[in-house]
């Protein structure tokens, strides 16, 4: 059951990303017109099929997640929505590529960190770094403590405003 649930959530996320990428990857986003409608139909068909498959193996929560993602994808594709999308600038392909690259790098780093933590559990033989376990409780006395001010440095950097961008 747990494996099915994980599979369902992964499938939902992948389909959501896969369905939405063509929407903002299209350089002719503003002039897609009828082509977008055709693409939407294809995406609908893909999503419907995935939804049917998912529904068979998953529970209701995953299905709701897929449905939400599917709706988002559809809205992005057609631009036919009540929200005020006209104010938003189209997403550039360069931004998408950068986002995907950063996501993959982050994923790989987290992957190695996660497996590294699991790997560290196999090693329990190591030297002690100190003798903190053997300090007599309440025996520590701070006999002298002095903080002498030496100097300061101040750096200033120009703030970036919206106009600079």
């Amino acid at each position, binding site marked *: 059951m747990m494996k099915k649930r994980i599979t369902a959530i992964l499938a939902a996320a992948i389909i959501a990303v896969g369905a939405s990428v063509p929407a903002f990857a299209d350089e002719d986003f503003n002039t897609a017109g009828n082509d977008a409608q055709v693409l939407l139909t294809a995406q609908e068909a893909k999503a419907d099929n995935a939804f049917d498959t998912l529904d068979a193996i998953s529970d209701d929560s995953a299905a709701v997640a897929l449905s939400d993602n599917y709706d988002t994808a559809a809205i992005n594709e057609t631009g036919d929505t009540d929200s005020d999308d006209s104010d938003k600038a189209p997403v550039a392909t360069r931004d998408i590529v950068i986002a995907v690259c950063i996501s993959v790098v982050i*994923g790989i780093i987290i992957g190695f960190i996660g497996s590294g933590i699991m790997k560290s559990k196999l090693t329990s033989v190591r030297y002690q770094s100190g003798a903190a376990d053997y300090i007599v409780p309440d025996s520590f006395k701070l006999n002298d403590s002095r*903080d002498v001010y030496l*100097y300061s440095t101040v750096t200033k950097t120009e703030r970036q405003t919206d106009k600079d961008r």
Partner: protein
Amino acid sequence: MGAILEYKCPCCSGPLQFDTDAQKMKCPYCDNEFDAETLKSNDDILKEEKPDMMDWSSQPGNEWMQGELDGQKVYLCNSCGGQIVCDDTTGATDCPYCGSPVVMVGQFAGDKRPDIIIPFKLDKEAAKNGFKQHLCKKRLLPKAFRTDSYIDDIKGVYVPFWLYDAHADAQAYFHGTKVKSWSDDKYNYTKTSHYRLYRNGSMDYERVPVDGSSKMADDLMESLEPFTADGEVAFQTAYLSGYMADKYDVDSDESNGRANERIKKSTLDRLTSTTTDFTSVTTESSSVQLDNGTVKYALYPVWLLTAKWNGDIYNFAMNGQTGKFVGNLPLDKGAYWRWTGLIALIATVAALAVSAFVLLN
């Protein structure tokens, strides 16, 4: 040949063994229990080691060749007369012929006598259970290791340790910085203030242990810490019966360096912990002086386990007082890469979802 000691049951003459539950000497044959204190008088015998008066005739060719026993000693079992050959540091063991627990008298006599001992609190079954628990929740452990590995050897050993007590005075100079940031309409400002910090403190240490046996891996023994003073008692040879024991072969002078290293590290850490008002702190110089330093000789209880798998030998150890279990385990490289890929995939998908959300909003 050296002399050995066996604690015999006054009722049936069976070999007495130390019982961890009752914390008394117990006869495995008639189940009678004897307090260690009542057997203390036997220790008086141990202090007067007498010359061996047993003149055995041996056939030519049956004698040990010259140099063959270098680093080893031969004892005769009082129960069956069998020869017990062991390292010259062995202080207690079992007769390989009749299984009787024997204690080598001379190993703990005179100035080699330990000051204190922590008797075993946990028995062999606890060590076996500790091994099973040690294998749990290890996703990268080869599955075959759980099923195919087997404990090849398990023995309770009293390991010699040097225990250091000292009063430590320490002085340290640090370089500290405080960083403050603010902004106005045009600029972001960062002010870094530099300080020289001086700290002078003192603290006491008790029973900092350093392994006194060259046969035991130092990192393995340190991994078993801490041992607590709760179960410490004055040394009596009766506690050794039924277990292996070694006398030290690394003297306290050789062990001083490791004790000093650990004490200095913890002392400076303690002083550094008083500089939390600063953004960053680096140590410029430090010194530690130890007063009233004393060293005690102790025997600590350790269960040693050896497991075999795939032709390799894996060593494990359990603290015989607290039950802490340590030992390195093999890595399933296939599982490592599978888990890395799976976690990376999930993290990538999550990062993509966040990226999509940010870009679309």
